[in-house]
């Protein structure tokens, strides 16, 4: 931990709530985030000793100055510097900021040294954040005895397709907890859980560097911490670079999920089914911007992928899966295109097993998922073109059930043997008499 952070801890000695805001070139939005945090803490937790920590990774757009100008006198604000290591500068994550893992580590270390009851981390590019978000993310930890509060956003049916088609169904089927936004980026964490995070020695690995969000969520659900969700409304944030490399983004996300699968293989092996995580907050509909997708381009990418990459897919996929994909790529009109749930589940499971075995070519193999993913998104868009939000959620639920139903297949190909022993998801670590709605 840097000397400035240590000195701040020595000066403060104790805090009940720590709000962490990692940043990197977020001058346009961070002022709003800091003000929302201050207002939220003042309004909902006036009796608590709270502190806001901005951990900046060397912004060059005046982010620290904006934070200073947004600072109100009645709240404790700490501005720290997270030095970006050369590796962070060379390999930027496609989701989140460079060095976000290091920033989180420092925030958790401070929270631990200050003996905080709860720690909240929020993204610094949020435009829709309100003071209520802090109540919703902190209250379940402070008053409800929960260890991990995941966000639950209202999103357009075509928004967050990696979450909907891979991360949510896979995390749910593996660890048995239905956390709808496992890579949301805004989380509430209890003392027990952030201390557990700090105990781990994989902070410098790719998982923590590129996939800190799924890393946090997976540890919470896999190790039996008490988890819940809070409805935060819509998530509006600075638009990502439209030219961002989708294949690199997919590779980083899937690689993180698959590496954690390897670590927790004995945990998910025996879990069956899933249970809903408690959802706090008043759910309401939010007007969302329309999302336009280019179906032709996605289908072309899928078909060209089937022509070009079948040699690579052969290394990951079983012959029957590959032949089903090839047949689909050759089939009829775009309107009839349908990549069904079972085939998609098989693809993901087989890629997960392949990523486990092929260390040297893992990145290449995972990048080759891109056309398959675009095919799946195209199929989803066609199927849900005329459906409302609830019906689309039903479609995603069906996909999750397909993941759960086919879990024995995953166990069979992952461990090389059929499933023999199963157990329901374990009870949460923290005991609580009754779940409380916030």
């Amino acid at each position, binding site marked *: 931990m840097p000397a400035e952070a240590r000195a701040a801890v020595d000066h403060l000695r104790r805090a009940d709530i720590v709000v962490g805001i990692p940043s990197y070139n977020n001058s346009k939005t961070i002022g709003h985030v800091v003000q929302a945090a201050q207002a939220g803490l003042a309004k909902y937790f006036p009796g608590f000793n709270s502190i806001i920590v901005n951990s900046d990774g060397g912004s060059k757009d005046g982010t620290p100055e904006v934070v200073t100008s947004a600072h109100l006198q009645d709240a404790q604000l700490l501005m720290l510097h997270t030095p970006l290591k050369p590796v962070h500068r060379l390999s930027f994550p496609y*989701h989140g900021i460079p060095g976000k893992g290091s920033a989180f580590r420092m925030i958790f270390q401070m929270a631990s040294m200050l003996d905080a009851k709860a720690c909240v981390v929020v993204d610094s590019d949020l435009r829709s954040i309100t003071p209520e978000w802090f109540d919703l993310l902190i209250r379940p930890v402070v008053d409800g005895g929960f260890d991990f509060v995941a966000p639950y956003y209202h999103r357009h049916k*075509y*928004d*967050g*397709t*990696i*979450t909907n088609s891979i991360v949510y169904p896979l995390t749910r089927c593996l660890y048995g907890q239905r956390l709808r936004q496992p*890579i949301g980026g805004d989380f509430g964490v209890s003392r027990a859980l952030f201390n557990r995070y700090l105990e781990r020695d994989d902070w410098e690995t790719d998982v923590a560097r590129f996939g800190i969000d799924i890393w946090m969520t997976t540890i919470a659900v896999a190790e039996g911490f008490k988890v819940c969700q809070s409805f935060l409304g819509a998530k509006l944030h600075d*638009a*990502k*670079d*439209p*030219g*961002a*490399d*989708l*294949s690199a*983004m*997919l590779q980083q*996300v899937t690689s993180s999920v698959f590496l954690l699968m390897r670590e927790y293989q004995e945990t998910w092996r025996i879990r069956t089914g899933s249970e809903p995580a408690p959802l706090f907050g008043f759910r309401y509909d939010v007007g969302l*911007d*329309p*999302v*336009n*997708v*280019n179906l032709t381009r996605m289908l072309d990418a899928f078909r*060209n*992928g089937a022509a*070009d*990459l079948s*040699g*690579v897919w*052969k*290394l990951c996929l079983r012959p029957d899966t590959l032949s089903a994909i090839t047949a689909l790529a050759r089939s009829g009109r775009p309107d009839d295109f349908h990549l069904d749930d079972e085939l998609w589940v098989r693809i993901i499971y087989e890629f997960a097993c392949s990523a486990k*075995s*092929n*260390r*040297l*070519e893992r990145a*290449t193999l995972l*990048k*080759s998922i*891109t*056309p398959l993913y675009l095919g799946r998104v195209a199929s989803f868009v066609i199927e849900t073109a005329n459906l409302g939000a609830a019906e689309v959620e039903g479609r995603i639920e069906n996909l999750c059930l397909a993941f759960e139903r086919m879990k024995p297949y995953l166990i069979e190909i992952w461990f090389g043997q059929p499933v023999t022993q199963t157990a329901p998801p374990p009870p949460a670590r923290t005991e609580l008499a009754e779940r409380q709605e916030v």
Partner: protein
Amino acid sequence: MIKTLEQLLEGVVSGILAHLNSLLPPLIVAVFLFAVFLMAAVAVRWVLTKVVKGAGLDRFLKEAGLSNMLADRGDVHTTPLVAGAAFWLILLAGALVGLSLFNTQLTSRMVESVVFLLPRLVTAGLILLAGVWLAQLLSRSVLVWAHNECVPAPRRWAVVAKVIVVMVAVVAASEILDFAPHVFFAAFVILASGMVLAASLAIGLGGRDAVRQYLDARASERESQEEKSLWNHL
């Protein structure tokens, strides 16, 4: 006339008998030794197949991605590979021992050259193997990258990458073996130059179209922002 023929025949037969007298004993011994080595090779192969499980090595090959290089489905087992290598090495040793029994200039030279060539042969083989493995790895990587970046003809780019790496390995191996190294090097230079020339022509001829397409794309992108939303996948 008949007498002359008889003399000639006697000469030939005595020559053959003399050769047989000198070569038959070592030949018999060589065949016997070769048979012994063959039996030893078969026995060693059998023992290795039964004793060496090689599960750890199999796992290493699989996890390192080497299995996929040796077999498309990655179903490579090290036990038969090790046993097969031991079998052929013992057999080669038997052949060399058999040849050395003849104690002629020719056989001695043959044995000597094989013994001296063997380490270089192994080194060259390893270089080729590493080259092919690297070529496979690189060509797959180029293929996936080119496809995802919508580069035209991704499979051709992958083949180009593979050919270049294999060619470098062949040149290096030929240097080690001292087997026409200049020919292979010249072939490599010609191939590389040809590729550069072809690429230059392609870029030169296609450059105008590419620039026009790029400018059109930029203009249409400015007009419509609809594609942006497609990228919000997380």
